């Protein structure tokens, strides 16, 4: 495999003549069918068909074919490797012993997408949409209702095929059934929305896992979408995949600026919109919604955490890569810059947790507590495990019924009197308070993501392993 434009190919052109005199040699040329002149058996590969299908990355590449099957290859020029591969010696007297090759035209960035579509486009089943010459592709996406209000990356066949390289799963595999319209979604359709969201191909397995988790009865994306409440899916990524994708678990981890955090969460929302048909003002009846419904995704700071990660709490082995979906909105802040004992800090956290949703409402909705490094340090220094903190919070969040009863404190909202009378009620039912660790190293704050209706009646934290 050669191209005339490559100096190394020019260097080895006479060697190919030497080889052709001793062996059966066919040369595929990528740019000039007259090259190399010393070989008569030349094949015009300007269409790059052979180069593509043999996955040639460098020219020259010398392949040894036996009975129609490739048994060896070497890239660039190396006398010793060429001699060994061809079984001919000596070769290329007077040439330097080795010289690196050049990039194959089949992997040229300006051609690779076109070639991929030409040779692999058959893998795609989605309907192709042709735009008129004067149509702006970004404006078209807005006009046709495919965006969340921000521009989307046009999902061209080349981009979708590149995205599909991010997974070993077949494009036509059905991943989930997406609410509210209950539409079966394939890997390809997820890939299309991942392209639109701005994902890199390596993010696709995480997006696939998030879609699968969202579309379970346990997570209940249908209800979360339809509700008048603020919430949307909050994605927490655990395990080695987070670092591999360069996800942010530290400074500004709930904010803007990290491509993986931003686009993975957005891709899930675009799937619900574009495949499930969940449109704001249509089935989505949120009174306010929240900015997290554009995207809400971060990684847990496992390396900096004194505690076992969320994935382990959820029953997965440490080292497994997972996504966990929590129905939430926020965050809101807990400030405590003074407490240096775990008891005091736990009381601070509990005071704010008690006020989630309404200080007089209990046992109906969950919350995620994101403990910052500086707050986690206080607990770690005193030897408090996550279980110890949870137990302390559970105790602190047992609230006297008379404070919660309807009418108590001059507030009509609250727990029915019969339920409240003469007992203490827990703010959260077992399992409804989720604790993770993330955030920048400076700042004695923690964060609360308020949940939505919890338990089987609503939505429960749902964890899915990421499969490549």
């Amino acid at each position, binding site marked *: 495999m050669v191209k005339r434009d490559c100096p190394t190919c020019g260097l080895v052109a006479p060697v190919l003549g030497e080889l052709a005199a001793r062996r059966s040699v066919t040369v595929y040329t990528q740019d000039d069918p007259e090259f190399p002149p010393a070989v008569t058996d030349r094949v015009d590969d300007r269409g790059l068909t052979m180069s593509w299908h043999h996955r040639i990355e460098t020219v020259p590449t010398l392949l040894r074919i036996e009975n129609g099957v490739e048994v060896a290859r070497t890239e660039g020029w190396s006398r010793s490797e060429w001699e060994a591969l061809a079984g001919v010696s000596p070769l290329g007297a007077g040439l330097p012993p080795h010289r690196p090759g050049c990039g194959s035209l089949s992997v040229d960035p300006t051609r690779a997408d076109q070639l991929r579509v030409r040779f692999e486009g058959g893998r795609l089943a989605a309907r192709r949409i042709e735009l008129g010459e004067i149509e702006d592709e970004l404006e078209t996406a807005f006009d046709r209702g495919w965006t969340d209000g921000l521009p989307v990356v046009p999902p061209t066949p080349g981009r979708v095929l590149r995205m599909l390289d991010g997974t070993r799963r077949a494009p036509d595999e059905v991943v989930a059934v997406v*609410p509210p319209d209950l539409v079966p979604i394939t890997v390809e359709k997820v890939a299309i929305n991942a392209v639109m969201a701005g994902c890199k191909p390596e993010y696709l397995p995480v997006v696939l896992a998030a879609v699968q988790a969202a579309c379970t*009865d346990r997570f*209940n994306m*249908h*209800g*979360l979408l*339809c*509700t*008048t409440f603020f919430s949307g899916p909050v994605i927490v990524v655990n395990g080695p995949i987070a670092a591999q994708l360069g996800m942010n678990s530290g400074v500004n981890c709930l904010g803007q600026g990290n491509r993986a955090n931003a686009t993975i969460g957005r891709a899930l929302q675009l799937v619900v919109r574009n495949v499930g048909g969940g449109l704001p003002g249509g089935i989505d*009846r949120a009174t306010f919604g929240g900015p997290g419904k554009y995207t809400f995704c971060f990684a847990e700071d496992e390396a900096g955490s004194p505690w076992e990660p969320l994935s382990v709490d959820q029953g997965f082995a440490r080292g497994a890569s997972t996504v966990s979906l929590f129905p939430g909105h926020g965050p809101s802040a807990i400030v405590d810059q003074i407490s240096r004992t775990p008891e005091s800090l736990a009381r601070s956290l509990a005071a704010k947790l008690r006020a989630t949703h309404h200080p007089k409402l209990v046992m109906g909705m969950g919350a995620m507590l994101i403990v910052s490094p500086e707050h986690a340090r206080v607990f770690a220094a005193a030897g408090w495990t996550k279980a110890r903190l949870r137990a302390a919070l559970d105790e602190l969040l047992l609230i006297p019924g008379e404070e919660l009863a309807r009418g108590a404190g001059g507030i009509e909202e609250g727990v029915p009197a019969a339920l409240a009378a003469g007992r203490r009620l827990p703010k959260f039912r077992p399992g409804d308070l989720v604790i993770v660790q993330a955030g920048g190293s400076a700042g004695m704050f923690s964060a609360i993501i308020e949940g939505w*209706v919890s338990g*089987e*009646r*609503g*939505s429960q934290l749902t964890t899915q392993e990421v499969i490549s």
Partner: protein
Amino acid sequence: MLDGQVVALLDISKPRGEVFLEQLAARLTTRGATVRRYAKPTFTKPAPVDLRRRIAEECDAVIEALAD
């Protein structure tokens, strides 16, 4: 008049939904309809398939108190 018509009232289990449905039931009955009451287990999830089928088989029309 709604004589002979069977109307389903589907309570989605939202707070005070039953207040609204009681009013509807009274009015429908006055107009001659037979009212049958159904309820979803939770307002957060779509009605189970079996429940939808029962309503379809047993009633001529359905009114669902959909939201808050």
